[in-house]
C-alpha cells in the first residue's frame, strides 16, 4: 500500500556505502571530495552511510586483494536488494598495475554485478558524480521492476 510512496521517497535519497578493497586511497579521497561543498553530491540526496544494511549504492575501489576479498563478499551479501554497484577507477575492473599479482583476486565482476564503472586513475569528482547519477537512475529502474 505504501510501497509506491516509499519508492518515490527513496528515489531522492540513494545512500552510498563505500568499500575499499585494497585501494591506494586516491579514489577514496576523490569520493569523499564529491561530498564536500565544492561538488556537493548531497544536494541530490547522496549520503555516505556507515552500514551496508542502509546502502542503496555500493562504491568499490581498489583491486580485490586476497585479504579484502572475503570481507567484500560478506559486506555485499548484507546490502538489501535492489542495489547498484559502482566500480571506481581502473583497479576494480582490471587490477591496473597490480594485474597478475599473487595478492589480488579480481576483477570485481568475478564477485558481483557491476552496474556502472568509472574510468580514470583516479577519476575526477565530476565523473564520479555523473556515475552516481547514472547509478541512481538504474536503481530506480530496478526498484520499479521489483515492485511491479
Amino acid at each position, binding site marked *: 500500500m505504501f510501497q509506491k510512496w516509499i519508492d518515490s521517497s527513496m528515489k531522492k535519497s540513494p545512500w552510498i556505502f563505500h568499500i575499499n578493497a585494497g585501494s591506494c586511497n586516491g579514489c577514496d579521497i576523490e569520493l569523499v571530495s564529491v561530498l564536500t*561543498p*565544492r*561538488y*556537493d553530491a548531497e*544536494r*541530490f540526496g547522496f549520503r555516505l552511510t556507515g552500514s551496508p544494511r542502509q546502502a542503496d549504492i555500493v562504491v568499490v575501489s581498489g583491486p580485490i586483494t586476497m585479504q579484502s576479498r572475503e570481507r567484500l563478499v560478506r559486506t555485499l551479501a548484507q546490502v538489501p536488494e535492489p542495489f547498484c554497484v559502482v566500480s571506481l577507477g*581502473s583497479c576494480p*575492473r*582490471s*587490477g*591496473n*598495475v597490480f*594485474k597478475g599479482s599473487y595478492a589480488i583476486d579480481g576483477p570485481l565482476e568475478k564477485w558481483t554485478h*557491476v*552496474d*556502472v*564503472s*568509472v*574510468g*580514470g*586513475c583516479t*577519476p*575526477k569528482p*565530476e*565523473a564520479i*558524480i*555523473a*556515475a552516481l*547519477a*547514472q547509478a541512481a537512475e*538504474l536503481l530506480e529502474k530496478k526498484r520499479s521492476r521489483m515492485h511491479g
Partner: protein
Amino acid sequence: MLPYFGEAIRNLFKKPATERFPGSAAPKAAECYRGRLSYDPTKCVNCGMCIRVCAPQCMTRTIREIDGETQEITFTFDMTSCTFCGMCADFCSQHSIVMTDDYMMVSSDPKDFLVTGSFQKKKPAAPKFTPEQLAAMKAAAEAKKKAAAEKQEEKV
C-alpha cells in the same frame, strides 16, 4: 571586529562555491590533464614501443593476415586498465598516441572504455633472388676469380 562584518556582508552576495555540474556542462580539465587517450592509426608505424612501456599492459595488438602482402594491425587500448601515466604518448615517436583531456569515462558497457584503431601494412617487396640463388652466384663468381688467378699464374 569591523573587517569581519565586511567579510560577512560580502559573503551574503557571493555566488555559491558549489559547481553546478550535472545541471550544466562539465567543466574543462586542467591544462596538461591526462585523460582518455586518442589513437591515430594513420600515423602509427607498429614499432610496439607503447606496449613495452605500458606498466598495466592495457594494450593488445592483433595482426591479421589479409593476403600474402598485406597485414591488418589493430591496436586496442583498454581504458579500464590504464594508469594514465602518459608513458605511451611520451614514447610514441610518430605522435599517434595523444592524451586528451576527456575525463568523463562513465558507462555500464565495457565496450565504451575501449579505444581501437587499425591500419594496413604492406610487406616490403620480395628480394630479386632467393638466398640459394645468391649463394650459387657467389660461388660461381669466386670460381671465375680463382680460374682467372690460375691463368695469371700459368702465364708467369
